[in-house]
């Protein structure tokens, strides 16, 4: 029982860490542009595919690779996806900055669709086996099994999140991004390079999302062109749950969602006497989304989002 509990906790933490990495991208973009970036889930997918491509270029045989090649592939891949993210913003979102609220969302929908079909054409729609970035070692902890992959994911994700925390709260770039997020016109009046700040957000967000994608693919050992869609929606749920626009909120929301999901999946068949099985896991996440919006649309740590609030005003 205790072993099972420990194992489920570690499972939830692992999934939560991946959700958090993606949710951060949604929340940061929403913070500065008040826009839902539907293409963000595709950054997650792109991360896995770019890393795979780099690995096969670096070593040829993807199955047996050394630690140095893996680390290099990971770092180069997430930076490349970050650059792709900045490029997409320049081409598809920047011209629409003074347009209606609907326009950039529709544009991001187009980007998302194009990226998924593009990868489907280039790499094929079928799932591809993804190499593990960590040794296949398992540890027994008080009766539960914890794999090295899970520990690796947790370390990598927390290192990235700590890095982001440092960047946002302790660096000059962070001050600029926060200022733009607070009020773009004021930041502009103060002589802040608003475009630079937005580019920064579109670099860091996809970078974290791509890292999430690589970790996720190496956890399950598989990647598909459509892997970003459902995970993206869940990460978005996590961002809303924590309070969209809030960076600690996104992390908190991600872990809560992961725990509810893992706990719910384990308990759902027991509680309902097998009427609702584990296949309703995704329904559970979306039900949470709708419930949060009903009861507390601002999320746990977020700003007020009712239409009366000033946030709704078309500031830009």
């Amino acid at each position, binding site marked *: 029982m205790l072993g099972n509990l420990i194992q489920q906790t570690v499972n939830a933490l692992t999934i939560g860490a991946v959700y958090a990495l993606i949710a951060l991208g949604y929340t940061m973009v929403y913070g500065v542009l008040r826009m839902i970036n539907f293409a963000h889930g595709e950054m997650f997918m792109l991360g896995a595919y770019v890393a795979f491509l780099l690995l096969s270029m670096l070593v040829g045989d993807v199955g047996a690779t050394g630690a140095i090649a893996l680390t290099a592939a990971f770092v180069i891949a997430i930076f490349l996806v970050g650059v792709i993210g900045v490029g997409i913003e320049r081409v598809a979102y920047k011209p629409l900055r003074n347009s209606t609220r609907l326009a950039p969302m529709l*544009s991001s929908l187009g*980007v998302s669709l194009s990226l998924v079909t593009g990868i489907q054409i280039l790499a094929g729609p079928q799932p591809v086996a993804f190499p593990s970035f960590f040794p296949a070692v398992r540890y027994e902890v008080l009766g539960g099994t914890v794999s090295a992959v899970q520990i690796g994911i947790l370390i990598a994700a927390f290192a990235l999140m700590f890095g982001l925390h440092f960047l946002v709260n302790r660096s000059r770039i962070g001050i600029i991004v926060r200022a733009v997020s607070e009020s773009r016109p004021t930041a502009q009046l103060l002589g802040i390079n608003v475009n630079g700040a937005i580019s920064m957000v579109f670099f860091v967000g996809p970078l974290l999302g791509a890292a999430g994608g690589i970790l996720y693919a190496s956890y399950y050992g598989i990647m598909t062109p459509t892997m970003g869609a459902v995970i993206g*929606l869940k990460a978005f749920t996590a961002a809303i749950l924590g309070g969209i626009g809030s960076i600690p909120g996104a992390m908190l929301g991600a872990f809560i969602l992961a725990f509810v999901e893992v706990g719910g999946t384990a308990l759902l068949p027991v509680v309902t006497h097998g009427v609702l099985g584990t*296949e309703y896991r*995704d329904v559970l996440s*979306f039900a949470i*989304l*709708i419930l949060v919006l009903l009861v507390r649309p601002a999320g746990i740590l977020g700003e007020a989002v009712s*239409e009366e609030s000033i946030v709704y005003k078309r500031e830009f």
Partner: protein
Amino acid sequence: MSVAETLTTAKPRSGRAISFLFFAIAIALIVATPFLPNYYVRVINSLLIYILLGIGLNIVIGYAGLLDLGFVAFYAVGAYSYALLASPQLDLHWPFLIILLVAACLGAVTGILLGIPVLRLRGDYLAIVTLGFGEIIRIIINNLDWLTGGPKGIPRLDKASILGIQVARPIDFFWLLLVTVLVVGTLVWRLERSILGKAWAAIREDQDAARGIGINTTNAKLAAFATSATIGSIAGAIFAASQRFVSPESFTLQESVLIVLMIVIGGIGNILGIVAGAAILMLLPEVLREFAEWRILFLGLLMIFLIIVRPAGIVPRSFGPDKLIRRLFGK
């Protein structure tokens, strides 16, 4: 036509020629359809279903300015209404028109139930909640095997008949769909120009100002949502009757996105634009059969390009059905 009128309408002469051309193509297509092979009649039928879906979704996206990414859920509600009420699945064999009515009501109720919690919120939340809702409906249909047959779907649906006349061949459905599209299209076009339509336009342009002049924005949005859901559900019921088979595969997220794509490419907020968008969506795979997998990539890129360069779409909002009629028949 008097000289003065000729002078005042002299400029859009080329526009008039194009209007006549399109009108002629539409009439020719309608007249020719009964003589086409069944395969092409089916293509035209699905074109008409997409037009119907587009007209429905356009009320929410084009008129009220809200993004609905779960529209296919209402389509599924209509399709499964027919599948369950007219098949051996539950051994119910209701008449087609009654089911159409039931489906329309169910669609409206579903739309209102989904709308109530989210329409108070910021517009962009609606996109994500409807997306989630669409997925919930699909997962439930996929797993409720005893009722919906799960991923295998429901086969052997009844042949539809309207007042004793059997509607079974593709050409029968062509006439049924054509009449439905014309009736629904006219109603929705009139609705857009009614006081409710003006309230939608006000909400779309500036929600705070709309509220300032005394529009109950929540109710107006709810009305848009319910009308759109009703049309989606009607389209679903006709779709199920014409296929005589339903499965969850027809109701994926990509289908919702494709309908949005079609509206944006054709011309957001304009029924004529939807016809153009549906034509592109349906005819492209017929023309470029060898590049079938490139179609969606092309459409996605086209949508990004159009939003940036020509946000009004191929047929802009200003060129509505009333303008077409004026171009065609003088005043």
